[in-house]
């Protein structure tokens, strides 16, 4: 069903999805998708609107739980542990699998509190000096420290769109997750801010397993090493990004990538 390019090395898979299907009520939004996520490469999900790529992404940290009618079948493992199993708590899962959303959504609190919130609720850092360190480390890693170090008390919502999104990334990495899911993180940003986020993704890859859903094929081409093409709830083709964009195998992938879709 899915065309998978020549044997992909997946020894270091951080997360494995096997035959995952998602239903919204009676409607099947995702149809038996299997894929491996690793810290060795950035994985991009592309596809037309409504193809289910975001829905599938939200399976990895169980954000679909919040939608009453959504039902997930199949198996997703985080380091060989079933994330829907009894041994995995959803709060713990979300601390290990962070997420960045389409629209920058900093909390209407100070920049400092935005970053410190995660470590605080998980009890990772209790005292002020510890928190200070986490905040500085996260903001530095997100490339935002120099821009905001003098105004940590200002509201996170007062930042520009691109800074807000980097703040959200910093917030996600403040709890030191293993996987970061990004759901069209640049769709609301201008090209310069987009370029900064993409550079940030490049820097973060290797340390975190990153999955990015994007509408922009150029973006997928720029930031990812693996690309999966989704269409009508199915994963049509999966392979190295360079192959997908220069020489896709499936006709639907080719039509989509070359702008012939629809």
């Amino acid at each position, binding site marked *: 069903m899915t065309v998978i390019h020549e044997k992909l090395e997946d020894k270091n898979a951080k997360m494995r999805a096997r035959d995952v299907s998602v239903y919204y009520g009676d409607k099947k939004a995702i149809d038996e998708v299997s894929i491996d996520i690793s810290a060795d490469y950035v994985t991009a999900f592309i596809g037309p609107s409504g193809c289910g790529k975001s829905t599938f992404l939200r399976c990895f940290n169980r*954000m679909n739980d919040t939608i009453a009618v959504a039902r997930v079948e199949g198996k997703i493992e985080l380091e060989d542990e079933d994330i829907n199993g009894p041994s995995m708590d959803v709060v713990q899962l979300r601390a290990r699998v962070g997420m960045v959303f389409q629209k920058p959504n*900093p*909390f*209407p609190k100070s920049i400092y509190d935005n970053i410190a919130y*995660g470590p605080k*609720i998980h009890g990772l850092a209790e005292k002020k000096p510890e928190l200070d360190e986490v905040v500085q480390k996260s903001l530095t890693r997100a490339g935002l420290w120099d821009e905001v170090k003098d105004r940590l008390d200002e*509201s996170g*919502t007062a930042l520009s769109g691109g800074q807000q999104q980097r703040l959200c990334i910093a917030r996600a990495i403040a*709890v030191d997750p293993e996987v970061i899911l990004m759901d069209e993180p640049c769709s609301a940003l201008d090209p310069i801010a987009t370029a900064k986020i993409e550079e940030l993704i490049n820097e973060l890859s290797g340390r975190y397993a990153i999955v990015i859903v994007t509408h922009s094929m150029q973006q997928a081409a720029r930031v990812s090493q693996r690309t999966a093409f989704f269409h009508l709830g199915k994963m049509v083709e999966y392979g190295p990004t360079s192959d997908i964009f220069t020489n896709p195998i499936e006709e639907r992938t080719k039509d989509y990538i070359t702008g012939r879709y629809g």
Partner: protein
Amino acid sequence: MTDTAITEPVRPTRTPEFAKRIEQRYRSERRFRALGLGAIIFSVAVLVFLLGNMLANGIGGFQRAELAVPINFAEAGLSGDAQSLSASGALQALEMQGLPDIVEFYAEQELGEAGAAEISGDAWRDVASELTQNPSLIQGENTFQLAASSDLAGGLSGEGSAEMQALAGQLASEGKLAKNWDVGFLARSDATSPQQVGIWGALKGSILTMIVTLLLAFPIGVLAALYLEEYAPKNRWTDLIEVSINNLAAVPSIIFGLLGLAVFLTIFPNLRSAPLIGGMTLALMTMPVIVISGRNAIKAVPPSIRDGALAVGASPVQVVFHHVLPLALPGMLTGTIIGMARALGETAPLLMIGMRAFVATPPDGFTSPATVLPVQIFLWSDEIDRGFVERTSAAIIVLLLFLLLMNGLAIYLRNKFEKTW
């Protein structure tokens, strides 16, 4: 012919008809604006008229006709020191010493028999309370301003019988009768004479009732709104509850009064007329408003904030209390204030549970008999004595000021909590 139709481009937007239509559109817009402006001007004019009328009447309500009576206690043989006068039984002690007679005697001496008759029988109490507050007055001669009877007050305003008007004119010309600012109006309670009434009893009753209403309705309303919005499953039962709450908000207030009468007064039969029962009844009425506005405020919290919190691993309770509630609070406060303002002005349900009783002393607590501002206004407006007309207006002004204060506090709180994103 057909050739020209094809070659000549039709420019529908440049025809005179089109220009006419545009003109028409602008005209209708101007008409609409004029109508709107007219509506606003009309409302403002009515409001100004009402407020002006109320103020003009109400100013009189804050004044009362008083007779000046010099009293020399030393001469009258009344004695006492600071200690005994500030003791709790001072009033009775003064009465035993014959203060009522002393007051009457000096009044007759100063005002003549006819004038003294128009001093209210309770005037000695005012003298006594002034003495207890300021014991040094008991030495030497001092002039006391004593409330005139309502007949004499009417005479001073040019109303009532001819003799009374003549007497009032005579006393006024001698400088013994005058309208003075009545600070005591804000400190006294209900009485039978408009010269003796005060608003404090009703105001305190209102404040106590509002406290009970707020303490009951706000937490229950907010919690109900939170549960319905965040936790309740969407099924027939929750739909039913939602419809019920919406209907409850539209139920006429007198029904709540009946409910209070039937339920609360059956459970607590001794608490008739108490602010506690009044507050509970009004809370029933206010809660649906808080629930509805609270739910809307919660719905207005962007889902992205919720997602953001969930994604860093916050539990549902943490999401609600760290993010949703703080963001929804301003909206909830607005709804609460609207509900409270409605409750503050509510009369009907309180009449049902007996808060229309004549209560001459301010309530000591939540369980003592009390009345509230709107009921007091209602009662006074029913009185026959003309002196109550001005007093009613004054009470309305106090009610409006109280309302203004409450709204001001709410706006302050809302702006303090409001956050932008």
